[in-house]
């Protein structure tokens, strides 16, 4: 029984994983700068923010929803966090504030979707504008910069030679994997996405769990904001533009179905790395910016095409 369970859990990621490996192999051949420890750590670090936000997105998409507001929430959490840091709040408290702003914004999405019965696309599209506006108003349009070394260590520091953002990312993925596979929240996330009515008729408190999922997405956007702010030593009200597309791309490349009910968190990590490695490689190769867009678009399409073809063969 174990192997069957194992395969059904991990087998679906094969396609994308192979895609990632092929991509890495190609880059290894094309440039000597790619396959070095510092560069790989570099890629991991650059991928971390998108990868973390994509975790929340994965939960949301498994419930057959979508969250377009993540980028704006990053900006809003960021400026609030920055302002309280500058006001002298101790770092742990300030972090809590940053996470809290993200969580609350996400919960507002959740409430609009559950009690307001808005389609997630609309609710989070609205929130995308509202949170962006809030960030601009709050900061009067100006970046808020300059923080203590202890705060900045969150992004610039290393633990066992591994950049802290990478460690945070790994922890988030471990926790998310655990939650999705072993807890009620995870189970209901799948159930709601698979058949909301059936879940509701089975006694699942659909509203509560949906709201939690959007709250989680907001919370992780808040976490992304913390790392971003520490990394740039500045919080900008215009940060995070189009982050939602990157997060959605990572999730879907990773095999999560936009129809809901299906998806694995490991896949999302692979998806985020495909995007990160690709950007890194294009920079290393010095490919022109115009061509980069075309290449990124094509690779996204290709990655999912390969995955689909492999899936078809397996069934």
């Amino acid at each position, binding site marked *: 029984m174990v192997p069957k369970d194992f395969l059904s859990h991990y087998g679906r990621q094969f396609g994308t994983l192979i895609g990632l490996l092929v991509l890495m192999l190609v880059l*290894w*051949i*094309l*440039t*000597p*700068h790619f396959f*070095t420890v*510092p*560069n790989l750590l*570099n890629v991991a*670090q*650059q991928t971390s*923010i998108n990868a973390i936000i994509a975790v929340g997105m994965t939960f949301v998409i498994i419930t057959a929803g979508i969250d377009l507001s993540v980028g704006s929430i990053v900006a809003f959490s960021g400026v609030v966090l920055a302002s309280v840091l500058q006001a002298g709040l101790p770092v742990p408290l300030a972090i809590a504030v940053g996470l809290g702003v993200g969580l609350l914004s996400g919960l507002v999405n959740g409430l609009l979707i559950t009690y307001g019965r808005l389609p997630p696309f609309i609710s989070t599209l609205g929130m995308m504008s509202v949170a962006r506006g809030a*960030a*601009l108003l709050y*900061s009067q*349009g*100006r*970046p808020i*910069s*300059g923080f203590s070394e202890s705060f900045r260590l969150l992004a*610039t520091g290393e633990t066992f030679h591994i950049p802290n953002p990478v460690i945070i990312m790994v922890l988030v993925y471990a926790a998310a994997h655990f939650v999705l596979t072993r807890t009620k929240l995870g189970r209901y996330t799948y159930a709601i996405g698979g058949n909301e009515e059936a879940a509701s008729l089975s006694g699942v408190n659909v509203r509560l769990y949906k709201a939690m999922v959007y709250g989680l997405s907001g919370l992780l956007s808040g976490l992304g904001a913390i790392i*971003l702010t520490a*990394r*740039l*030593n*500045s919080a*900008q*009200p*215009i*940060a995070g*533009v*189009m982050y939602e597309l990157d997060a959605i791309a990572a999730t879907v490349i990773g095999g999560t179905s936009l129809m809901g009910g299906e998806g694995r968190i490991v896949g999302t990590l692979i998806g985020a790395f495909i995007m990160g490695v690709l*950007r*890194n490689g294009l*920079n*290393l*190769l*010095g490919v*022109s*910016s*115009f061509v*980069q*867009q075309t290449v990124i678009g094509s690779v996204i399409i290709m990655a999912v095409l390969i995955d689909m073809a492999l899936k078809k063969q397996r069934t």
Partner: protein
Amino acid sequence: QRGNNQAAAGPTIALVMKTLNNPFFIDMQLGAEAAAKALQVNLVVQAAEREVDVEKQMQIIENLIQRKVQAICITPSGSREIVPAIVKANRAGIPVLILDTRVDEVALAEAGGQVATFIGSDNFEGGRIAGEYIVNRLGGLGKVAILEGIPGHETGDARLGGFRQAIENSPGIEIIASQTANWERDQGYNVFQNILQSHPEVQALFACNDMMALGAIEAIAAAGKTGEIIVVGFDAVADGREAIGRGTMDGSIVQHPFEMGKLAVEQAYQLINGQSSPAYIPVNIELITKENLN
């Protein structure tokens, strides 16, 4: 076999811009390419997809550090946000040259970062020049509208700040509308068309870039008011110059991006060869109008 795409001769210099989706930066790239050709250096040009995305710009710089380029020229998307990336380049022993947008001195000093030189002009100053021109044209009395860039974007804010300062110095001039058109031509059209509805008395327009100004002049034309409203843009892109030539636009602030790109590569080449650079290489910023359009 792992290839190496660098030409054997000459050092490699990187030029990292805010974006390439803007003729201003394309001109800068052309200048850099011209210098690179002359000096026989390898030039790598990279830019973020979106002008506001500092984090992507930082990623590009990190990646170029991995690639071990010998010098990096940057047009910062954020004057303070770029500092950590500069510090990283410093640590890797790669000289950093700044173009177009100044790095925040305080933040840089606090972080212990260093830049070899700043090549560029001052957006704030450009805004001020535009303001003074409009004040003069209106004879110190009149109603002005502004088209802003993306809210919260530094370049636009600096231009806006300079312009407002010039206006504040002349009490007879009133700013009757200041709205964003997000740097874009079509939004410039729509927003100014709307402003014309609520403020048909508007006498002059300052747009924080030429794109918005070019959209606005079409809206003015559609309203049959061509020639009645003074329009000043920023960047003097090709379309802007042409409009000035035709008289549909009155002026634009020019920053000579080609010059900046060229200077940057030349200076970087000198630095690599052990020579030093002056801390500030000013590039002329000026207003062009029909008179000095050559």
